[in-house]
């Protein structure tokens, strides 16, 4: 039998019906190294609608990561990725918001768009915004799949938050516990405040994030609440956690 058409190989997937993705709406917050790739994966899978948030512009320093091209330097990231996704799969509706989600128009857009989404992919680069997204997704009851890479660029983690069911980002003691947390902020290092970014790690984390998102959207397999990828040892670890009843974000005392 000839296998033709854009989704022909996807239809051969036996664990779930991937055509159901056409009715799904996914928000991607942050379209940098992780988010741009995750958005492309979701678009190629045939997710019906993607809502992208990022205030940043493409810089030459971003070109070591995937998706962006040299000719796009200076463009808003969400605009550049929107054009890319339309070329990759014209079936996908892409809405882009070139604003900061923690302030002004971006916050308004986030409050308008996210409660109508089936899932949020968190691909941001700071813990503060990650915790902010976590709090908002828990409040709006929208599942969040958060991904991140370590400062040295070689390790990564994916956290799946299903409000009311799985532990939220703040319950996650292994992710937050850091021996330096109880000490004052370290400023001894003379390096500039920029972290390494490796396209290989980004691709691994974005793929893991999309894999978990897929399972969550279509309800097959077993979703891992917290996945840690150790690039130096080539190890992937699934960590089971329990909800913290005293968690200030999702705890029962709240």
């Amino acid at each position, binding site marked *: 039998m000839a296998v033709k058409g854009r989704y022909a190989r996807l239809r051969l997937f036996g664990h779930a019906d991937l055509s159901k993705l056409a009715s799904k709406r996914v928000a991607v917050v942050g379209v940098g190294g992780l988010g741009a790739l995750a958005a492309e994966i979701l678009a190629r899978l045939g997710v019906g609608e993607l809502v992208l948030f990022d*205030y*940043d*512009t493409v810089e030459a320093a971003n070109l070591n990561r995937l998706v962006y091209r040299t000719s796009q330097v200076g463009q808003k990231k969400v605009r550049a990725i929107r054009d890319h996704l339309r070329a990759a799969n014209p079936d996908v509706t892409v809405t882009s918001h070139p604003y*900061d*989600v*923690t*302030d*002004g128009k971006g*916050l308004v857009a986030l409050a308008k768009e996210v409660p109508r989404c089936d899932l949020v992919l968190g691909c941001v680069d*700071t*813990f*503060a*915004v990650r*915790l*902010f997204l976590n*709090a*908002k997704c828990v409040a709006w009851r929208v599942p969040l799949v958060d991904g991140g890479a370590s*400062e040295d660029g070689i390790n990564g983690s994916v956290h799946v938050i299903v409000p009311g069911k799985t532990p939220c980002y703040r319950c996650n003691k292994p992710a*937050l516990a*850091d021996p*330096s*947390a*109880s*000490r*004052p*902020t*370290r*400023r*001894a290092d*003379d*390096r*500039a*405040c920029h*972290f390494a970014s490796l396209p290989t790690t980004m691709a691994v984390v974005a793929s893991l994030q999309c894999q978990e998102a897929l399972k969550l959207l279509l309800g097959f397999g077993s979703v891992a609440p917290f996945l840690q990828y150790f690039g130096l040892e080539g190890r992937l670890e699934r960590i089971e956690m329990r909800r913290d009843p005293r968690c*200030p974000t999702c705890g029962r*005392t709240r």
Partner: protein
Amino acid sequence: MPRMVRDYGEKYLRMEDDLFYFLQCATVASPKEPAWKDRAAEERYALDRFVEYLKFLEGDEWIAIRPTSAAATRWTGKVRHGGREWDAELVLKDSYPHVPPACRIPELMHYTDRKVDDGVLGLRICDMHMEKNYWWDEHASIAMYLKREVSYWVQSVVKDMRGKGWL
């Protein structure tokens, strides 16, 4: 008058791991929400307690910050350390207190790498490390940010500049 942290009880606040719990705020409200005026009053109250604490220490450190915009989203003042004084500016985004404030100390910005630059708030002190050593929550206040972030940032930058002979 808003309820202060001392009237609020231990239920919602982290007391066991932070001696400076008295700098926390009980009301959780963003600048665009009606309860923001209560929160802003609590922020001022916490700042006063922080200044009292600095006075008690009798150290060579002083921070005086007050709101300078009508909506209390921009707080400006002075930061003093090691006999020198700089203007400081704190900007609160609409999602504050879910995200920490951003701080700018213009006279020190050009001499250090410990800064971040983004398209929204421009050049500001680097708090990447704070975010990693995560302690910020919705009850944390501007006073706590000054104590646990700005103060250490200034100390380290001043030490670094002295080492290089710039100060």
